[in-house]
């Protein structure tokens, strides 16, 4: 996916001005930066939720995973998935094996008839993850999908994400504030700076993300580079 000559303003503030970025196919790119810099605006642009000028070159559909599960509270887990996804499959029906596979991956197969109020925060976010990967899209954009969750829950959700990514590889753009999340789940980390947005830091991570540890060289090097940038920009 390639964004070329993106322009977007809010009032007098030019968020993006002739901005270009390319996201490598079937890789996960984490987008970081200070609050209000334009990360979520980029997500809205990619997802088609806001108007802009410029072009986005992509081949296929996009699915999204927000920081909130965005579940319809009158529908069960499986009905929520069908509501958002079924129309994208031939005959308007999600193949049974595909549905079971994704629900098994996020360990919700036994909760598929539960209503959202019967789910914990973590379970609800797992439904959102399942929905993002169940939609037959080429791209997934994630907007702080693990925000506000406790550490243990974050670790579990990250595992589910990696498992689903392996099963259904996608080009993922992940908006996050969490350095560990970025370094443990992505193949590349870009850091946005100032208005209009420019890419201040662009770090590639070469190790296999499903087995990557904070003690690995590329993780530790990237973390140090990011912290040096933060120290210099304060």
């Amino acid at each position: 996916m390639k964004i070329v000559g993106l322009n977007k303003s809010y009032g007098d503030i030019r968020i993006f001005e002739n901005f270009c970025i390319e996201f490598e196919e079937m890789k996960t790119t984490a987008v970081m930066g200070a609050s209000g810099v334009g990360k979520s605006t980029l997500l809205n642009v990619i997802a088609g939720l806001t108007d802009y000028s410029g072009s986005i070159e992509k081949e296929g559909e996009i699915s999204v995973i927000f920081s909130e599960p965005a579940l319809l509270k009158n529908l069960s887990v499986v009905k929520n998935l069908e509501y958002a996804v079924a129309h994208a499959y031939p005959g308007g029906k999600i193949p049974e094996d595909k549905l079971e596979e994704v629900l098994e991956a996020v360990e919700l197969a036994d909760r598929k008839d539960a209503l959202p109020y019967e789910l914990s925060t973590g379970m609800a976010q797992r439904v959102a993850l399942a929905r993002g990967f169940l939609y037959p899209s080429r791209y997934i954009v994630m907007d702080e999908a693990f925000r506000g969750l406790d550490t243990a829950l974050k670790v579990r959700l990250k595992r589910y994400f990696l498992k689903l990514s392996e099963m259904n590889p996608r080009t993922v753009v992940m908006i996050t504030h969490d350095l560990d999340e970025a370094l443990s789940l992505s193949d590349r980390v870009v850091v946005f700076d100032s208005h209009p947005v420019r890419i201040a830091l662009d770090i590639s991570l070469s190790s296999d993300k499903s087995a990557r540890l904070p003690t690995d060289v590329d993780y530790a090097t990237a973390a140090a580079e990011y912290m040096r940038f933060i120290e210099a920009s304060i």
Partner: protein
Amino acid sequence: MRADGEKIKKFLSGNAWIANIVYPLIGVGVIMLIWFVGARVVGVEMVLPAPARAFEELLGLLGDKTFWSAVGNTLGRTLLSFVSSFAAAAVTATLSAFVKPVSKIIAPIITVLRSVPTMSIILIAIIALKAARAPVLVTFLIVYPLLHASFERALENVDPYAVNMSRVFGVPLYKRIFVLYVPAVLPDVFAASKSNVSLALKVMIASEVLAQTFGSMGVYMQISRIYLDTALLMGWTLAAIGLSFALEGVVVLLKKVTVRWK
């Protein structure tokens, strides 16, 4: 001792029968007591009759064909006004929520309708229309802006994440309307309907009094007032309260049948 206290507290707050039957009955009892004491203090039935006298008059009315005809006429007109207001509010609130220019056009109309004194609307309607039709228009003009505002707010409060998710996933419009929007606004729609259906009845009766609508509850109340038969007037008032409870009860029942999630 403390454990007993906890048990009593739990019994009083957790028992559905106590919460739904006993507590409301205590509330009604308090009203009756105040009414009874008030009537004893005033001591003149023409000014404030005792509750027993009002209930006696109500019982008398229940066996009277004219009473049921008046209730039917008033109820029919109230439902006609309410259903028209509901339908108009549903259409204009939907347009306002989704089409910005429409929202800008409708907003001042709603503000004006909400600001015009009820009495002005009643008096103008009485001049312009027949006695049977004026109360219908008056009730519509009072209830419609309130329902419009409630419905518009309900639509604006639909989870923005769910709305955006539906857009990104390309959920078909009919599914968004019937699976996302309608169920999301139903609880607020029922809450607004419950309070406004009672208001509709109150405005209807007030309009009937002023318009002197033939064979209506309002006009029979006015006749009781002219003859200074306050006990009978209170009997009609009790009937109006009962009718109001019944209308609210129907809305609650419809909500229970329709809204099955928390």
